[in-house]
């Protein structure tokens, strides 16, 4: 019997090594695997490369991971934002490396990682300062730059419903980076709001097939915090 459910967040995150590349899904706290992020802090893992849309906001979640000095490098599309206070402190001390990426380039680099494509050309950022040092090539008269795949050692994902095979269904805008990150890591760990029996999820609605998923933990996290 295939059963990817584990009993605790600690069990879900067991074995994550220092120096790992960790993909963390979620967009503005919606679809963000907060219990797994907190659990990652608990493991004590350090020297991490974190791939996440932002460098964290406020003092919780990815911001706390950075604030506690666990992140050697952050790869994101929004570094500086209202509320990126912990990142600013650590960055000002020169204790974190930053790679800033256009959001679509970031998503596509992860997708390429998932699909076994080592690199690809894109028009995004061609002719800008983000293209400096990157190979470029002209196709049909337009300039494109070479971007390399991102593949994680670990991906942290939040689902709305999951079954024991690791098939996942998302809720509303909580889908965001979850499916593409789930597919692009050696170890994909999921926290799910609800548990479905095998066969209960409609094959039509499964957005992440279980093949990508390694461990699932049931966390009734509730609704994302209300934005003011």
């Amino acid at each position: 019997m295939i059963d990817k459910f584990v009993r605790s967040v600690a069990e879900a995150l067991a074995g994550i090594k220092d120096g790992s590349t960790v993909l963390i899904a979620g967009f503005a706290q919606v679809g963000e695997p907060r219990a797994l992020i907190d659990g990652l802090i608990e493991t004590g893992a350090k020297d991490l490369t974190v791939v996440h849309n932002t460098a964290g906001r406020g003092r919780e979640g990815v911001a706390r991971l950075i604030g506690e000095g666990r992140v050697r490098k952050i790869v994101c599309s929004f570094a500086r934002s209202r509320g990126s206070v912990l990142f600013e402190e650590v960055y000002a001390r020169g204790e974190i490396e930053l790679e800033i990426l256009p959001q679509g380039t970031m998503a596509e680099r992860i997708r390429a990682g998932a699909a076994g494509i080592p690199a690809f050309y894109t028009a995004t950022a061609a002719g800008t300062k983000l293209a400096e040092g990157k190979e470029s090539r002209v196709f049909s008269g337009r300039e494109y730059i070479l971007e390399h795949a991102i593949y994680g050692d670990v991906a942290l994902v939040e689902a709305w419903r999951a079954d024991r095979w690791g098939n996942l269904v998302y809720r509303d805008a909580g889908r965001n980076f979850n499916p593409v990150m789930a597919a692009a890591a050696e170890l994909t760990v999921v926290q799910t709001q609800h548990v479905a029996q095998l066969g209960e999820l409609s094959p039509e609605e499964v957005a992440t097939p279980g093949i990508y998923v390694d461990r699932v933990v049931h966390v009734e996290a509730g609704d994302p915090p209300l934005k003011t």
Partner: protein
Amino acid sequence: MAANQNWRPLERDALAARLAQDIPEGWSVNLGIGIPTLVGNYVPPEREVVFHSENGILGMGPAPPPEKINRWLINASSQYVTLRPGASFMSHSDSFALVRGGHLDLCVLGAFQVAENGDLANWARSEDDNAPAIGGAMDLAAGARRIWVVMEHNTRAGEARLLRRCTYPLTAAACVKRVYTELAVIDVTPRGFAVVDMVPGLSLEELQARTDAPLLGR
């Protein structure tokens, strides 16, 4: 503001409404942060325009009343939104594939500067801002079929934003097709900026005085 001035600049909402007039039924449209977001309020609901949000939504509707907020349903500016009938969700990679693959008819963006060749600068105000926020702007600017910019004609200090060449770091080269400001609507053409219309009472000379690059009249 001169005492003998006999024209009035458009307010933010009027500017958004002016731009909204030009979006035809059937287009798929992404609206950036700021005044661009207001544009959605001025497309009448009976005109079917499909609004896209980078975080994986097509068919977005207006903001909900407070008692109807769904905390799982936000746009790329982290504001609560609704869905119109016909809406769909997709992952971030599919959402940006449709941006980068040229499937959006229009993206409306704010800007710091636009050059007469259509160069866009809207993400950093200096070369040494090393920890900025880009988000999806570079993908949208390079990928959407049309980029329309909505911005104030001049900086608060009175400097021109419509330039021969941008002085701030570029978001994308030669992508802007049209600019809407509180004073005028201006097309980017192979011959440079061409005035489409101006607020009533404003002369081309007065507009040119507030613009760095040369303007072609109607």
